[in-house]
């Protein structure tokens, strides 16, 4: 009888130990899963951000490629680009001997777009 009781108690202890082990493993697995999920979410978000940034860069690159480069300044404009106010040279369009003066007469011809 006493042996039976001891055996039963041992079985119960074993069962409880097994249950605790299973619980610990379950909690551990859940924690691991949660951790992995977080890591995965972070990796995914990071990848999406990288992808978006890459796409943005690609768009910029595409935009840049559609705007042709400004042609190089000619050799005759010696002091810089044609847009530079300091770049006037003798090879520029020449100024008139006398500037136009105001007039109130009826015009002989009209200068305008054509």
């Amino acid at each position, binding site marked *: 009888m006493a042996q039976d009781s001891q055996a039963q108690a041992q079985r119960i202890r074993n069962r409880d130990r097994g249950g605790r082990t299973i619980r610990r493993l379950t909690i551990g697995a859940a924690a691991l899963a949660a951790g992995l999920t977080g890591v995965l979410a972070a990796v995914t978000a990071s990848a999406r951000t990288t992808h978006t940034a890459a796409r943005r860069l690609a768009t910029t690159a595409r935009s840049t490629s559609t*705007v*042709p*480069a*400004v*042609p190089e*300044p*000619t050799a*005759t*404009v010696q002091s810089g*680009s*044609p*847009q530079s*106010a*300091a*770049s*006037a040279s003798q*090879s*520029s*369009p*020449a*100024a*008139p*001997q*006398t*500037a*136009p*003066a*105001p*007039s*109130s*007469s*009826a*015009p*002989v*011809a*009209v*200068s*305008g*777009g*054509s």
Partner: protein
Amino acid sequence: MRALGTTAVVAVTDPDALTRARRLLARELRTFDLACSRFRADSELAAVNRRAGHAVDAGPLLREAVVVALGAAERTGGLVDPTVGRSLRLAGYDRPFVCIKLRDERLVHPAFERAGRWREVTVDDERGTVRVPRGVELDLGATAKALAADRAAAAVATATGAGVLVSLGGDVAVAGAAPAGGWPVGIGHDHSATAADVEACVTLTTGGLASSGTRVRRWSTAQGAMHHILDPRTGRPAQSPWATASVAAATCVDANTASTAAIVLGYDAPAWLGSRRLPARLAAQDGGVVLVGGWPHEREPA
């Protein structure tokens, strides 16, 4: 009279010289049309464009016109570029303007191609040839009319001894002794404006005066409205704050070179013109006016 796809005006200080002046001008314009028209199949320029990549026989007038156009490109750092011919054609300006007005705009699908190969064009005076590289087409529209005005005015003054004004589509050249007070020239967005419609009036005693604008010579396409002053850097119509740029210079060619460059330069135009002491009137798209380089303050036109 009408010529080179626009109107021509000749005025002389001696009424007896007028008939001869008209005749000389008409002859000059016929010669120009045969040499420099992009749309005449029998013109020398059309032959040069057709045979791109080869040296093509060209008479002295076409050679001079090409040299002048290349000079304009050089003096503006390529802002006024005769190699925009292909860009203009692709943008829809592929026939005489009167024909453009008649076509169905929905069928016109423009493309845009930058120019800039003017350094590769060669003019050989010894052999009498002009050569453009493959893939390049010349358009002399920015300078040929002005050159014709300069040449015609000089020819009439020499032949008649009178003071003369020649205007080809608003590209004005004067030669000989001007009348007392100078030649009165109106300034407007359209050279065909009546005297009552001009925005300003100035007098001219020497050289030339030219205007370039984006409100005239426009056409519609499936992608919207286009105008004929292309930015060679993009092959697209120049996006300019100026509707019309009027410039006075030593010659009509120089004036037109500068006025075309001013449209392309946009906001940089006043500094560019001012540094070259070129009197200019820039009429903005929004109605404002900027006067540069000694252009006179305006009186109300008569």
